[in-house]
Structure formats: structure tokens, C-alpha cells
């Protein structure tokens, strides 16, 4: 509220730690260093956090520049609050492995479901999340 009182502006969020959820489902955590009028974001010391169940893993990514249109939500992270109370941090390899397993399991169930539907002569078209048009 510093620069443009009465409106929402990202200027006051600069140099604070943020969590951003992108449209492709990735979660990035980093220090918001710079913005522009399109809400393109420059993140510093970015970490991609992968969540699988109760576990999560951080992959350091460095500097990220996120195009504004790909942001789903963005929020400041409270440094004072204790984090990871419920979640358990694991190593990168482990979390990637977990993620892979999760994807695999999902694909399996999806496959089975499709098969069952097909047997019954039904089909549900898969919604593509990324394409909007």
C-alpha cells in the first residue's frame, strides 16, 4: 500500500519471500526481486518445492523470471510462522522418486478407468489443463 494506496500492488512485496503457484502446477518459493506492470516476476534464490503426500522436496533453481500470465497465485511467506509442521522434508531424489510413483499410480488408475469405460461403451474426453482454447 505504499506506492499506490487504495489498490493492490506488488511493489510492497518486493524483497520478501514468496510462494507462487504457476499454471503448470509448479510451486516456486523465492525472494521477489522485481516486478513490472504485467506482473512478471523476478525471483531470486528460487526453490521449486515438490509436494507428494506429506513429504516435500526443494530443488534449488536460482533465478526465475515468471511471465505474469502464468501465475495462478502469489503469496508472501511468513518467516515467523513455523513451517513444515506437518510436512516432512526429504531429499530431492526421494521426492522426485515419490512424484514419479505418484504419477505412475495416477496413470495406472486412469488407464484402468478408461478401460472399464471403454468396455461399457463410454468415453470421457480428457480435459487438457494447459490448453485454454
Amino acid at each position, binding site marked *: *500500500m*505504499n*506506492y*499506490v*494506496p*487504495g*489498490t493492490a*500492488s506488488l*511493489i510492497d512485496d*518486493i*524483497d*520478501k519471500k514468496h510462494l507462487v503457484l504457476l499454471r503448470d502446477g509448479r510451486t516456486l518459493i523465492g*525472494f521477489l*526481486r*522485481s*516486478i*513490472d*506492470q504485467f506482473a512478471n516476476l*523476478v525471483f*531470486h*534464490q528460487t526453490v521449486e518445492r515438490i509436494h507428494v503426500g506429506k513429504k516435500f522436496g526443494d530443488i*534449488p533453481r*536460482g533465478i526465475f523470471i515468471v511471465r505474469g500470465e502464468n501465475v495462478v497465485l502469489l503469496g508472501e511467506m511468513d*518467516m515467523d510462522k513455523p513451517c513444515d509442521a506437518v510436512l516432512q522434508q526429504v531429499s530431492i531424489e526421494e521426492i522426485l522418486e515419490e512424484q514419479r510413483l505418484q504419477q505412475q499410480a495416477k496413470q495406472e488408475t486412469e488407464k484402468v478407468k478408461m478401460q472399464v469405460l471403454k468396455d461399457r461403451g463410454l468415453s470421457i474426453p480428457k480435459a487438457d489443463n494447459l490448453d485454454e482454447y
Partner: protein
Amino acid sequence: MFRFQTPDEDCTLEEEEEAPVEEEDDIDQFNDDTFGAGAIDDDWQEEHKRLTGMEGRAVGGGVAGGRATEMIGGAVDPPPASNLPPPSSLPPLHLPHAPSGLPPPGLEDGRGGGGLAESLARFILGADPAIAGLGAAQSPSHPMPGPPGSALDFSRLLSPPSLRPHLHHPPHQLPGGNSSSSGMHPSSMMSYQQQQQMLCRGSGPMGQMASPSIWENSMGFGPVSRSPGLIPHMEDSPLMSIIKEVGLPMQPHPLRGEDPRDLSERVLPPRSSSPVIGSPPVRAVPIGTPPKQPMSLNHQIHHPTAVHVRAPLQHRYPPPFPDRLSPNTLLNLANNPMCRGPFPPGIGPVLSQLQRAQMLNSQVAGFPRGLGPPPMLPGGGGFRPFFGGPPPPPHHRMPPPPLHGPPIYHTTHLHPQHRRMLTQRMQSRPMGVGLDRRSRDPYSNLMTQREKEWVAKIQMMQLQSTDPYLDDYYYQNYYEKLEKRQERERDSSKKEHTTRLITPQVAKVEHTYRPVQFAGSLGKLTVSSVNNPRKMIDAVVTSRSDDEEKREKQVWNKRRQILYTVEKMYSSLLEVQDFEKRFVHAAEEERGALLERHKTHTETLCTLLTHTEQAGRVSDEQCVTIMSVRKGKRLISRLLPFLPAQQAAAVVMAIARNLPALAKKDKQDQVLCWLVEPVAVVIQSLSSAALTDLLQEIQGREGNLASVLQNKLGVTLLYLVLSEGDRMQSSDPNCQLMDDNRWTELVFSVARELLAAPSSTLAPPLFTPPNLLGLFARYVDRQSLEQLQEKLQISTLTS
């Protein structure tokens, strides 16, 4: 970058050697500005030596120097690893070598920059006891290989390739050196190694960067690229502030004491010309970047651009640091092993907490800059020039951003209540916390104040609206309701009246096009377009004379009046005509009402028809006037059956009387014939006296009959009347038609007229009653009868 000096320019070198001497004063002044008055040139070295107890020790650091540079990175060419003689011996070492042919061109300036090189070498070696120790250990084992004077190569970024092989040697020697010199300075060695390790490992405060990046120092170690004392462009950047605090680590102070010949000549000319022929022109500022100096709202007014103190020969020196030097690299510069002083291992990053706070607080307006040299600098006396200086005087700084204080007062578009809430919020917010955290962050304020203002300005521009109710309906409504509520609550007890909300409104300018006009030109431009249609026609209002206008108006008014009357009568007539239908369908009770209405309507008709201007005198003027209009004639014809007998007779009389006139008027319309039927009905109901009168009327004055006869209606009427009379006579023996001679006379005259009138002029009647001949037979002799017969037959034949 370096500029190669050809051997031909040897002589010029000497000239240039003197040139920097003049700048020494300026340089010194800059130095003072940078590092503060407390910066004393030679102190640090003595201090350092004193502290480390290395006085008198031979400092040779070929190997160590090589190792240092190897760690520093590939961009920097290694010094002649084995060729760094002790500083004290450096000058004498140089001289014998100098005259010997120095094949690499760079060596020329090496000779000239000998002072710099040796001071650098001293700096390096002095800084690091380990290196010094190693160097001392190694120097005997390594006579100077390669071209002499290669000690100076360290100062060159581009070294002759022959020196490269030296790179490989040092690493192998170092362990040996380490072991050999381990006895000498165990503590300092360990410290050095520890420092190295910490550097390698210590990415913590600098964030997650790969360790090699620490060593990547593309800025170069260039004493060459920086002229001593040159303060980089004082911008409001944290990095510059770091520089101010830390100082340019590459600037060895002995430089000033020594031959202040700096190697700026070696600097490549600024990149004004594109290095690649044919490549597109270098765009220093890529399209889309925020303006470097965006116009802030009040900035220009209140804070004119500060004059930056620069070296007078600035054009020769490229900026030592680019504007956006990352804290990483800067800290690297600060942390490189050359700078590594005799710090105890506890000190990790060079910039201490307080220093960072200091430099970052200087970013924020309003923060006191009274922080002196950080007291917690251990052994810092020697490094005072780098760290200890009080913050540079304000004039080096960019004017503090004006909006950082209460930016809320610069906006006008807020509702006063809203503003109040925001200020309260701002005050109550614990501002200190965030700032404190941010002050510890070395990467903060990467986005400059100007850029923030620029983005804010764009966002504010988007808030402009011509119609706030359209654009921000809910905001307006909410505050209106709030206002009302408050007024109700206060009940005007409070004197304060909430002022009306002022939103930034774009002025609704009237965009009327005014064609371009030149002063003094004759007339207007003839260019015409869609937006600028040229006047093609000058429409002139022609005003007729008043009399004519009046007459015309009168005529029109009269006509309008007649038509109006006719319309009124029509409406009544229609009602009358529909009466019967309604009467049949109406219930018993309503019939009376209907009858009443019917009567009223009929009366209206009568009155309208016999509208008299003067009471008493019945005039058929109205009839005639109505008849003058075609609609009127039609009206009369429809009207007649509904009129009471007397009125109908009167109407017919009127018609008969004015037949010639009517006939004349009817020439265009020819609608008089409609009247025949109803008139015939009326005639048949007429009494004999009335009939006679009618006949008389038709006859009118002398000569009129002829005109009557020319008119269809007239003729028809005549015949009708005659036939009726005859019928009357023949049917009713008590007919009074013959009582007076009028009838007979009239018939005679008619017969005469008929005979007289030529056949051609005779208008064919609509129908010829059959008994006319019989009538005439009684009055006319046979001859005439035959003629009459002919005439009568004309009509039937011709019609």
C-alpha cells in the same frame, strides 16, 4: 580492458607516465571522498606488516600467487607464477630485465606499469601470509622462467601465451609449498586455507550459487580498469553502496604512493563501435526496459538531478563497475583471497552485519548515517580505508527518493475516509520489522526506487477514468453509503464535513474539429475530408415580403382549419354511422345511453355544419367551405342521410345555390358526383314548395343555368328535380306544384336553356330520369320536344 601497446609507443609511454601525475591530486581527492579522511596511504601496509609480523620477510609468491590467480578464475591470467619477486626487490629486479627485449607487447606497459604491478604484487603477497610464505619458499626454486618482467604480467589481463604453462605448475607446488611452509606460519596458513574453504563452501550468505561462480570474476582484476580513486557512478544501488563501504578492492593504495601511472591507457576504447562488422547496432538499453531515469511525480521539481562528481578524464575510464553489479560479484571482489586479510577465521563474509546494515540503511531515506566505522572489524585498522570510512558525503548520493516518505499524500483519488484508514494502517504497522529483515538481505533493492515509481505510475495511470461511476462503481457506492451512515450517526454534531471525493478524471475535452487556419491567409483551406467536410453550398435563407408571407400563411391556416373541422365532423359521423350496429348489440339499459350519444353526435354535426359567425343568420358558408375541400365533399355526401330533413334540405339548397362555384372548384377533383345519390334521396323527400325553391336555386341568376348545365352534377340535379316534380305532379293530384306558376315558368326556362345550349357543352348527367320527356312534352311544342329529346338522349348515348 587492456589496450595493447606496441613497441612503437614506447616513447609515448613515458609521456603518459607523467600525465597521471597531474591527476594525482584529483585522485587523492577522490580517494578521500571514497574512503574518508581517515584513509592514509601507506598505513595499511605497515600496519599489516606489523600485525602479521612479517616485516622484512621476503615476500615471494610466485607459486602462491599463481595459486591465487588460478582460484580466481580463468578470466584472469595467472601471474607469472614463479616470478613474483619480493616487493623490496622488485624494482631492482625489473631494471635489468626491462631493457631485454620483451617480445610480448603487453610487457611494454608492464614496464611502464611496473609500479602498479609491483605494488599489486606486494599487496597480494602482503595480504596473504600464506602466499608470502609459499612464495618465499618457492622463489628460490623457481628462477624466473619466461620473459623477464613477467612479474608484471599479473597486472595484465591478457598475458602472453607463454605464461600459461605456468599455471600448471603452481598447483602441484602448492601442496609442497604448504608442507614446506607449514612450519612457518601454521596459524595463518590454516586461516588461509580455512578461508579458502569457507569461500568455497560459504555460499550461504550469498545464496545458492555454485561455488565456481564465486571465482568467476569477469569484472576482472583490473587495476587497469579502474583508475585509482575513481568513484563509480554514484547511483542509488546497493552495490554502489557496497563499493563505497568496501571500497574498490582492486585499488591498492601504494599505487598512489608509487608511480601513479595507471594502466588506463590499456583500456580498450568504449564500445562505441560494434565489434562485429555488420552486426546490428548495439542497443544499450533493450526495448522495453524501464527508463533509467523515469520521471517521478515530484522528483523533477524537488530534486534536480545531482551533479555527480567524476574524474575529469572520465571518458578514458570505463566505469569500473557496471550499474547493476550483483552483490555476488561484488562480494566476490571483496572476498577474494587477495583481500583476505589477517582475519581470524571467524570472520566469514567480508561485509559484516553492521556494514550491510549501514550500506542498506543509507538507501533508505531518513536513516541516520551517523554510523561510524564498524567497530567490530578485527584487525581492521589496516583495512580501514576499505571498510572504515564514514559514509560518503551526501553529494555523492543520488537524491533520496521523495516518494518514500508518505506516498499517500501524492494521490488525489482517494476518498478522504479511505485515506484516513490507510494512514492509520500505515502508522500502526510495525515497519521496523520488515526493514530490519530487509537490511540483512544483501540482494535487497535490486529494483530501484525509480523503477518502483515507474511501475506505480503505470498502475496509477490505469486508474484514471473519465467516469468514476462507470469504472469504479462499488468503490463509489461504498463510500457514499459510509458517508450517509456517518452523517446519520453524527447528526451534524461534528463540524467536519467529509469532502467530496475527487477522483483523477481525465478531462472530457470537446473534440470539435476546427479546420486549420493560417493567420493572414485569405479564406480557409480547401482540403476536405470526412472529418472536415467543405461547405459546398451556401444555403441562403430567402425571406419573402411580409405581405406575401401573411397571405400564404392565411391561406394555409384556413385550409388547415377547414380540414380540422372536416376531421371533427368525420369523427362524429363515424360514431353516428356505427350507432346502429352498436344499438343492435347493446343491452337494453345501454340503448338509452347510446341513443343519447347518437343525438349528441348528430347535433354536433349540425352545429358544425351550420356554423354561423353571427347568430341568427344561417349561412351556408360553412357548407361551402367544407365543400371546397375534397374531403369535405365526401363528408357531406356521407353526412346527408343522417341529417334531419330540414337540415338536409338546407344543405341541398346550399349546394344548389353555390353550384357554379362548387363546380368551378370541383374541376380538379370531380367528386361532386358523389353527392348525387344522397342529394337525390333528399330531393325525393322534398315538398313541392321546397322543390320549386330548389329548382329556382338551381336556375339561379341568368346565365347560371348554362354553367350549371355544363356540370355533371348540375345537369343531374336539374333532371332529378324536374323528374321529381313531374312525378309529384303526376302521382299526386293534390300537388301544389301547379298552384303557382313558378314551376311552370321554371320548367319553361329550363327547356329554353336546354334548347339553347349547344349539345357539345351539355354535360352528360349521371342518369337521366325517363319521365323528363313526358314532362317537357307538356310544356314544349313538338319541335322543341324533339330537340330536347335529342339533348336528353345525348347524355345517355355519350355517357
